[in-house]
């Protein structure tokens, strides 16, 4: 770089402006986190304060620790099961030619275009009939099959040289061992991206837990937060700092994860779109 003072000063100003714009863009969320540490009295009076009482209230009075646990269990199981199911199918679609295989794959790809809301009422009826409404299973089962994850992983596995499979078969491995010992280790980045994708979409899922769960004990964070906000409609009675504490609990796990793994997330999204 040439030590050109005017242009480098111009660049500093530009960078400062861009960063300021970024902060302004995120300011509602940043402010909501800050507000969650204020007492309601201080907030409404415009004073400054620091307190954890909103979090204590959210956990003790409004059961948010339980909602957090429910969200972790549901999203965790959906992610693990979803990845297992998608990886096996992706492996078969990538490596085998079999009667009906193309048709089945086309049917999987078609689900990428299907708006999920058409399944809302029938899935509700199916689970009601099975007695699985108001249960973890009722939240988990409909979310396990991800056509997107299967499609994405199939594309990835097709890029792995077949010679690696064949070497393993020579050593006496069976198809399952090839999948587990050869394909899965090489596909780790793709599997990780898809795992994140599944976890985040399930974590943020709202409409299904909203219709499938009536028991307060089984609310996920999303439903619990929406209910908390709706308990007291009419502005003067909303305890905003409390609501923001609940909102922060709802955002936080994904926010922390985001800071650590943003690159993987972006890769999953762009590979799905551009390829």
């Amino acid at each position: 770089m040439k030590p050109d003072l005017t242009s480098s000063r111009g660049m500093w100003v530009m960078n400062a402006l861009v960063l300021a714009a970024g902060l302004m863009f995120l300011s509602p969320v940043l402010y909501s986190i800050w507000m969650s540490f204020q007492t309601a009295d201080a907030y409404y009076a415009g004073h400054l304060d620091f307190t954890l009482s909103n979090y204590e209230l959210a956990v003790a009075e409004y059961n948010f620790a339980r909602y957090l646990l429910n969200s972790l269990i549901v999203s965790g199981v959906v992610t693990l099961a979803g990845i297992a199911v998608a990886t096996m199918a992706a492996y078969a679609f990538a490596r085998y030619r079999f009667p009906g295989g193309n048709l089945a794959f086309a049917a999987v790809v078609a689900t990428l275009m299907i708006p999920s809301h058409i399944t809302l009422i029938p899935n509700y009826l199916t689970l009601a009939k099975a007695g699985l409404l108001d249960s973890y299973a009722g939240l988990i089962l409909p979310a396990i099959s991800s056509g997107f994850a299967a499609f994405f992983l199939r594309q990835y596995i097709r890029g792995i040289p077949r010679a690696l499979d064949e070497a393993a078969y020579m050593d006496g491995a069976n198809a399952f061992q090839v999948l587990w010992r050869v394909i899965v280790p090489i596909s780790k980045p793709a599997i990780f991206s898809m795992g994140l994708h599944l976890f985040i979409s399930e974590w943020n899922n709202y409409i299904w837990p909203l219709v499938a769960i009536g028991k307060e004990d089984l609310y996920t964070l999303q439903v619990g937060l929406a209910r908390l906000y709706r308990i007291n409609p009419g502005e003067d009675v909303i305890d905003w700092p409390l609501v923001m504490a609940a909102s922060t609990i709802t955002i936080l796990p994904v926010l922390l994860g985001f800071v650590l793994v943003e690159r993987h997330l972006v890769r999953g999204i762009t590979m799905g779109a551009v390829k």
Partner: protein
Amino acid sequence: MLRKLTPYLFILPLMAFLAVFTYVPILQSVNLSFREWDFMSPTKLWVGLENYQLLLSSRDFWNAVKVTTIFAVISVPLRLALALAIASYLVRETIVSRLMRGALFLPSVTSTVSIAVVFSWVFSTDYGMINAGLAWLGFERVQWMQDPQLALYVIIFVNTWKQLGYDIIIYIAGLQAVPTELYDAASVDGGRRLHVFRRVTLPLVMPTTYFLLVVSVIDAFQVFTIVNVMTKGGPAGATDMIVNMLYRVGFTLFDIGQGSALAVILFVFLIALAVLKARVIGRKVHYEA
């Protein structure tokens, strides 16, 4: 024998889950849309096309179509134009531009319910950030979410805020695929920046634009969470988008027949859109070298 069965065993779990929770439910929805049922009564009475006739002659349905169309017509071009402009700037690989990408992308992985709650506060009449700013500047406080003229624009704003980062990331990937020699050639010709943008960048990101067009139109017709949390479709139906109406009819009025008919109409419309766009993209895709 077992050899031949192997691939079927591998795809069986996925296909079974898809069958139970996706394929069969589509058929069930079609079936239920021809019936009258309220979740409770023992019989599901066959009524033929009555649910569709009722829907097509109801004001609520056309209101939902209107609201959703306005939403799409405003939010889709807004998203694409903003995203392309910002992506053209952030495509460079500097620390600041990477930080900014992260900041813009964050909302698209953040809980929609949380975002809707936070923006309910931002736009709230008495305590919100926006009205505080307006009051500070000496303007009147505005009833953003209680005014039928404004509420839909608030929903569009929040949805755009949430989705923009996704569009930007996709555009950046598209822009990075443009060979830099093309830019060099254009600037050797003395092309000015806007000119280069119009003649080089815009045509080359066309496939990306079509992709995002499809995605954002489909998104627009599936908006639910923001509406459900912020306005419940009100005031006076001003934000009653199609999926919100579907939820209302199916799960608060328990009219399974009409709810299913609405789902089928939405389904057919979105599939038609996807097929149409697949054809258009198929024709335009020659830009991708």
